[in-house]
C-alpha cells in the first residue's frame, strides 16, 4: 500500500494506480476529457492537471498518466491548477466553439468566454484521439486515425474516403467526449444506402 495526500486528505493506493484513479476512488473530482477507462490514457487534453508540491517546489502534471508514489502531495484546486484549467478551457472553447459538451463543462468550471480567436465556428472536434485509440485498442482495427500534423491535425480515414476497414460498430461515436464523431462517422464508414434514415 502506498499512502500519500490529495488536498491534504490522506489516501491509500496500490502500485500501478494513477493519481486520477486514486482521486476518483476517493470521490475527489478532477475534470477530464480525453480520458476513458476503456482505452489507455494519453494525457493529451491537459484538463486533468494537478499540482505536486515538495517543500517550496511544485510542478504541474497530468493526473491521468501520473503514477502514485509514497508521500506525494497532490493538490487539485490550487490557484495554479485553476489557472491552467482556465487556459485549457479557453483554448478548447476557441478550438471547438460548436461543441455543447465542452461549453457545458467549461461553464461548470467558471469559463464562459475565450480570449483566443476561433478559426472554425462549426468545429466540435478537439482531436483528443479517443476515437483512434478505441478503434485500435478495443475494436482491434485502425479504421480511424489522426491525419496531418500540428495545427492541421484532424481526425479521419486515409485519403478522407470511406474505408473498408471500418466495420461500422460505432465505438468511436459512443466514446467521443464532444459529440464530434457523429458528423465525422459517416465519412469513415460511408453513408448507409437507405431511405429509412429520415423518419421524422
Amino acid at each position, binding site marked *: 500500500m502506498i499512502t500519500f495526500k490529495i488536498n491534504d486528505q490522506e489516501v491509500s*493506493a*496500490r502500485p*500501478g*494506480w*494513477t493519481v486520477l*484513479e*486514486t482521486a*476518483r*476512488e476517493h*470521490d475527489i*473530482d478532477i475534470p477530464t476529457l480525453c480520458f*476513458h*477507462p*476503456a482505452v489507455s490514457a494519453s494525457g493529451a487534453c491537459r484538463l486533468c492537471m494537478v499540482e505536486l508540491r515538495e517543500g517550496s517546489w511544485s510542478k504541474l502534471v497530468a493526473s491521468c498518466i501520473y503514477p502514485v508514489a509514497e508521500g506525494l502531495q497532490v493538490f487539485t484546486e490550487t490557484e495554479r491548477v485553476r489557472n491552467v484549467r482556465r487556459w485549457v478551457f479557453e483554448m478548447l472553447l476557441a478550438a471547438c466553439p460548436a461543441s455543447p459538451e465542452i461549453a457545458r463543462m467549461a461553464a461548470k468550471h467558471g469559463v464562459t468566454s475565450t480570449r483566443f480567436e476561433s478559426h472554425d465556428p462549426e468545429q466540435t472536434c478537439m482531436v483528443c484521439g479517443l476515437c483512434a485509440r*478505441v478503434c485500435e485498442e*478495443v*475494436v*482491434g*482495427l485502425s479504421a480511424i486515425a489522426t491525419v496531418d500534423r500540428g495545427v492541421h491535425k484532424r481526425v479521419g480515414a486515409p485519403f478522407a474516403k470511406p474505408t473498408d476497414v471500418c*466495420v*461500422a*460498430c*460505432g*465505438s468511436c*461515436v*459512443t*466514446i467521443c467526449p464532444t*459529440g464530434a464523431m*457523429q458528423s465525422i*462517422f*459517416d465519412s469513415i464508414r460511408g453513408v*448507409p*444506402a*437507405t431511405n*429509412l*434514415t429520415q*423518419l*421524422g
Partner: protein
Amino acid sequence: MSAYAKTGVFLCKCGDKIAPFINLEQLEKSVGAEPDVAHCATMAFACLKPGLEQITQIAVDKQLNRVIVAGCENRLMLSKFEEHLRPLELLKGQIDMVNLRGHVATVSDLDAEQKATKSAKLIAAAVAEMTALRPSSLTRARLQGPVVIVGNGIASFSAAAEMARQKIDYRLAVESADPGLIIERIHETYPGEQSYHPRLQKSIQEALQSPHGKLLVGRKLAMLSGVTGDYTLTFSDDQGAHEKFTAGAIIACLDAQFTRPKPGFGHDGKTVMIPSEMESLILRSGPPKGTVVFWISDYENGQPEFAALSAKSAWQMAAHIRQTSPAATVIMLYNQQMEVPLTAAERAMNRKLNLLWIPYDGAMRPTVQDGFLTFCNLSDHVEHELRWNHLVLSPERMITGETLRVARILGLVHKEGRFLTGHHARVRPEMVGREETYLAGSARLPCSLADALAQGRRAAAKTAEMFRKANAGELFVPRIVCVVDPEKCIGCGQCQELCDCGGIGVEEGPGGGLPRIVDPMVCTGGGTCAAACPYHALVLQNNSNDQREARVAALARRLGPDESMAFVCGWGGLPAADIAGKQGLKYDPRIHLLSVPCVGQIDACAMARALKEGASGLVLVGCLPETCHHSYGLDHAWARVNTIKKLLSLSGFQRERIALAHADLNRPEDFVRTVDSFTRTIAAMGPMVRTPEDQAKVDALYDLIKHNTRVRHLLSAGLRRPGEDTYQGDQRHALDYDRDFSAVLAEEFLQQRLLQVFRAAKGPFNLDELTGRLHEDPNQVATCLWEMVQNGQIGFTHKNHEAVYALS
C-alpha cells in the same frame, strides 16, 4: 440458489453519472436479495484499477464464476473486464454488463427510486441469463498435417515460397512443375506484366525446390471434408484414381479468367483482341508494327471498377511494344471518367516513349469499324476516327471452369457473382486471423500480378502465424460458436443453407446419415442458424437460446402490465440507444432494453416467451436494411416476427404487440422516435388481457413455436422475405406463400391447443366438450382431431355411440 452458478453483481456509481440518478442503495438491497446473486457491491468506478482490483478480490473470496457489472456500455468496456478477469478463469460469456448509465439513468425523468426499480429488473434478467449459462471448457485448437495449397493460381508459388521460408511443411497442387512453362502461360491470366517475371521465377524456384514442400502435379481436387486443423482432401488423377491427403490448413490460390468481349466490340482474336491474345502474338511473332490502339473498354464492359487495372497492364504492354518496336505507334484510348493510373516516374517514362493517351466522352460509346475506331472527342464534341492495325480491348473478367469448380469444393462460393467474395462476414476483429481457408489471387477480386503474389505471401504468413500459435498452445477455440448436438440433428441442412460464414459442414454419420458439424475456427458466432434449427440441435455455446429465454422470462415476469421490452441489436439498436443515453435524449421509460449481438440470433420461441411471461409488447430494433453484419439477421428476424404476429391474431391478441424496427447508430433521435412510437402503440392497446383462457392461448403459442417441428421447419425454410433479389432462383408468390403458411399455423395452433386440453385434464372428451372449451368451430375441431388420431398423437374410442378422444 443455483448449484454451480455463483454470480457477483457490481454496481458502478460512475462518479456523478449514475449515483445521483439511480438510488444505488435501494438497488444494491434489491439485487442482493435475488436468490441467484451470491454477492452484490457498489463501487465508485468499477472500470478503473481500484475498482477492478476490488472486483478481483471479491471474485476470489466469494469464488464467483459469473460476474455482472452494471455500469455503462458493454461495447466499450466488456473487453476490459474480460481481460482483467481471465486469470481467474472467468472467460468470455461468464461476464456480462448492464448499461445503467445509458439505458436507465439519463433517458427518462423518473425519480431515483423508480430508476432503481427499473435497473433491478434489468439486472435480475442478466442474472437469470448467467444462471442459465453452461460455460464450455476452454479448448486449444490443434492443427495437424501440412498446409495444402490448392487452386493452381499463380499466388500458389509465392504462398509456397513463404511457407518454405517459414519452414512449415506444405503440399503444392499444381498443373505443371516446369518454371519455363508456368512463366510462358502467365500472360493468359496476367498479361502485360513482364517486369514481374524475374521475381516470379525466383518464387517458383523457391517453391519447387524447398525440402519442406511436396508437389502434387496434374491432380485435381475432388473433395474436401473435415474442419480446421484436420482436413481430408481427395485428389483425382487423369485415370480417375483417388488419393487422400490430410491437411492442417488450406490456402486457396485462384485466378480469374478473361472472356471474350461481347459481339458489339468486334473481337476476332486476330486484329481486335484482348491483352492476353496480344501478348501471345508478341511472344509468337515479336512486337507488332503499325498502329496499335489500346482501348480501355471496361466502362463499356460494365466493369468500370477494373479500368485502372486494365489501363495499367495495357500501358505496360504498350511501353514494351514501343521499346522493342520503335516504328510502332501506340495509342491509349480511355474513358474520361477514369483517372490515368500512372505514377510520376511512369509518366516521365510515358513522355519519353511518346505514348499518346486520348480521353473520350463516355456518353458516346466508341464504335469499332474495320481499321478505324470512332470516338467522341471531349473538347470539341466532334466524332473522330482513329486508325488502327491492331486494336486491343479490355477483357471481361470472371471466374469460370476449373477455378469455379475448386472454389465450390472449398465452399468459397456462397453467392452468385463474378468473383469470390471475402470468405467471412466481418463481424468482430477478434475473428481476423481465424480464416482457415486463406484465399489469394485475382479470383477474389481482379488484381495485378504483384498484388496476387503479395496476397499469396500474406496468406502463407498468416497461416504460418496460426501454426506457430497452435504449436505453442496459444490458439484457442473461440468461446461463442455454434455446436451441433448429434443426438438431435437429423441432417435437414437448413443451417448449412443459411450459414454465411461457411462454418457448417457435412459429416458422415454412423448410419449413413449426414448430420452437420461446425468448424469452430470458421464460425462467426452469428447464431442465426442456431435460431433456425427446427430441432434445437444447433446451440450457440456460451450464448444459447436457453440463456436468452431465461433472461427474457426473468424480465417479462417482473414487468408491470403496461411495460414492454426491446431487443436491441449490437450493431444498430444498441449503439443508437447508447448514444441516445450519452446525449441525454429522453424516451418512454416503460421500455426495457435487452442487448443482443444480432436480432437474427433470437429464436422465435424467445420472442414468444416474452409475451407468455408477461411483457405487453416486444420490439426488435435491428440494423438498417441490408446492413446486417451477420447473415441477413434482419430478414430472418422479420420472418420470425411475422410468424408471431400471425399466431397472436390467431390467439385473439393484437398483432402490433410485436414489431421489428430499424435503427442507425448515428441517428439516436430516430431511435428515440422508434421507441416512443412503439410504446405509444402499446399504451393505446393497454395491457394484454390475461384471463386463464387467454393465458392458455399464449402458452400454446409458445409451445407451438418452441416444439412444433413442422412449424419450425417451415419457418426456417421461409426465412427470406418474398421479393428478395439475392436468391432469385428461390422466388415465391408472396400472397400464395403467406396464405399457405397462415393455414398451416392455424391448423397446428388448433392442434396445440387441443393437446393442451388433453394434457391439462384427464379425458376422454367428446367433440362438444372440446369445442366448448376452445370456443372454436366444431367442423375445424373435428378435422383437427381426426388428423391427430391419424398421426397417433391421440386415440379415440366410442362411448354411448359417440366418439371420445384422449391422449394415446
